[in-house]
């Protein structure tokens, strides 16, 4: 029994962190902020070389066949720099989906970094729901309608599209497909609206087959959030330990100290739950994997924006400027919250699991 990362994972983390600090730190994030293309070819190539693109892809498709707990390390590190690349959508989401539907060619292209893909789930409306398909019609494997908030759709080669008739694979260069970027206060993430007008798709199977992919993506999104929240706390503590006001370092004021202590508590509870959720994705019980993923997102959505906001508060006026990095992490945590539904959505799902379902377990045995 160990809830910590293995030594191997920590070594992997150190390598990643060094690479990101040198080649794709927050300076890189800022540089890509307003660009159409979130990535540069050389950074993406390095990510491939580091094994990020192939991490979750089976070995027989040129991947590494690694566990989600390894991907958790990647996502935490990417969150620490508010990385703009399509890792969440493609390396976690599309790679897992392609493996489930055994799309061997796509898997190889994803593993090698020559292609990326993403999932088109959400449809117009207010609050996010996973399986709502009122705005997409499918007739004879031809799709017409709208998906919104599709992550990293611009630049992607393929879309996994959910519909009332199941999951379809659609090439982004298919005739009738229009992808329009959606504004987002977090410029480190890219979303788009995708319109389909009689677009040909390849039927892949039931929506339910995507359920474990969505659980993985929820957990990966929270791992990214944890990394960003951790970095926000580090920056806030460092700033509070330096900055003087009224002749004192502001970090010596009890109000600031308690704010930081609250942030640490929120962070460490989140880490404990996240690591459990990562392990649960790998451990094999799909119900438990789902419960853990749902809790993870409910917790992250409710808590991480508060960590970001507290960090901004500690920075004071400096936190309100474009110049300091802390705003990057605050925005990253806001989009972590809102992407694929806030805490209301996932607390209701959790209620369905543990109030309508079985009584909650008291011991693990």
């Amino acid at each position, binding site marked *: 029994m160990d809830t910590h990362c293995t030594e191997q994972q920590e070594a992997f983390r150190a390598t990643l962190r060094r690479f990101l600090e040198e080649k794709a730190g927050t300076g890189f994030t800022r540089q890509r902020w307003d660009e159409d293309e979130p990535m540069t070819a050389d950074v993406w190539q390095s990510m491939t070389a580091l094994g990020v693109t192939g991490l979750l892809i089976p070995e027989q498709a040129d991947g590494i066949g690694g566990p989600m707990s390894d991907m958790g390390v990647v996502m935490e590190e990417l969150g620490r720099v508010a990385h703009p690349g399509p890792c969440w959508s493609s390396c976690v989401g599309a790679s897992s989906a392609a493996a489930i539907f055994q799309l061997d060619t796509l898997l190889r292209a994803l593993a090698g970094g020559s292609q990326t893909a993403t999932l088109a789930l959400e449809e117009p409306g*207010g609050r996010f729901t996973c399986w709502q398909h009122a705005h997409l019609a499918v007739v004879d494997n031809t799709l017409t309608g709208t998906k919104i908030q599709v992550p990293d759709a611009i630049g992607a080669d393929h879309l996994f599209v959910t519909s009332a008739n199941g999951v379809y694979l659609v090439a982004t260069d298919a005739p009738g497909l229009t992808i329009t970027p959606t504004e987002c206060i977090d410029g480190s993430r890219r979303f788009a609206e995708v319109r389909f007008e009689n677009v040909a798709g390849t039927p892949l199977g039931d929506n339910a087959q995507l359920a474990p992919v969505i659980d993985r993506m929820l957990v990966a999104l929270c791992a990214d959030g944890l990394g960003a929240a951790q970095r926000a706390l580090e920056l806030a503590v460092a700033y509070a330990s330096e900055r003087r*006001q009224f002749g004192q370092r502001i970090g010596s004021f009890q109000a600031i100290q308690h704010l930081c202590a609250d942030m640490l508590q929120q962070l460490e509870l989140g880490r404990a739950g996240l690591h459990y959720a990562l392990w649960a994705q790998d451990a094999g019980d799909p119900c438990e994997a789902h419960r853990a993923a749902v809790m993870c997102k409910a917790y992250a959505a409710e808590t991480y924006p508060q960590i970001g906001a507290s960090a*901004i508060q500690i920075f004071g006026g400096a936190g309100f400027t474009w110049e300091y990095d802390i705003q990057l992490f605050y925005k990253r945590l806001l989009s972590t919250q809102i*992407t694929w539904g806030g805490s209301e959505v996932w607390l209701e799902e959790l209620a369905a699991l543990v109030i309508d379902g079985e009584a909650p377990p008291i011991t693990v045995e």
Partner: protein
Amino acid sequence: MDYRYPPDTLPFRMEVRQWLQHNLDEELRGLSNRGALNPEQLDALRRWNRKLADAGYAAISWPAEYGGRAAGVMEQVVLAEEMHRAEAPAALNPIGLANIAPSIMAWGTEEQKRTLLPRMQRGDDIWCQGFSEPGAGSDLASLRCRAVLDGDHFIVNGQKVWNTLGHLADYCELLVRTDPDAPKHQGITCLLVDMHLPGITVKPLTTLTGEDEFSEIFFEDVRAPTSALLGPVNQGWQVAMTTLSNERAGVANLHLGVRKKIARLIQAAREREVDGLPVSRDPIARQQLARVYLYGEYQKALADVCIAGELNGRPPGAESSITKQSWSDIEQLIGETSASVLGAEAQRGDWGDNRLYSRATSIAGGTTQINKNIIARRVLGLPKD
């Protein structure tokens, strides 16, 4: 107990309302006087400001001798409500009119009063304040920007930050240290500096929303004539702290903005659907919307207490000291509620900016931490030890 506005405010309200109906052009509606203005917008706002000034609405709280109508709190509140109702932009110099002008009236030379105040009122000159410095946000007394008297000029060197409208400003109410050996609140002098003087560099300060709302101002051997001096040398602190006696009206109007946003949020929830039902029918969204609505209404109730206090000649009480903090709390609650209720839509456009911007309400003008220190010590009398 009586929560009705005094009946004699009604004629003034009707006068203002009619004037706005006849004079406010459609394209001016909703135009903000904060933040990054393009030259056309600035021109439009200047024209509007002159109209306001000519009609006597630009600075109604000023004494009559300076072109105001010595308006009491009720008239100020009514004007603000009507301007808000009509979505009329405020005058261009909010800080100038409310904070700088009182100092000039109290301490200025006749020349300063005669030349500066009318142009400020009309928006011909734009004013900024040079108080905050890097490394001294809320801690004004530790300021380091310095001025040395050299014949009939002050030589100013240093840096200021968080200057609202600094990049557009013609004048700056500048606090400089003139006696480095004096205790912190002393040895500070107030200058009214022409921003077009050589040696002044203004750099926009980009906020996290990407706007150039604030500036940094750098002074390098700037020669300001001694005629720029406001009040006595080394008494700049007292000079700058001069305010009009009925300033409570400003704070009392904080609820106007939040209540309009809340009404918009409720309307947005009515118009969005989730799973085939309006979001406004969702029980959880209803709780959140009702809660934010309640706090908006209570901010108004608190404003009424402030107004009534002023109206009935009571000194400001606990209600005044918490108004800014409760306003900040509700601005941030609106941001969080918009995220819950509108989902991804709260990540962009006005709602997105509003959420980011709400963070400033607990920082600018005294952080939450400093406000609470003051409330605890001054209002509740808790010990300092």
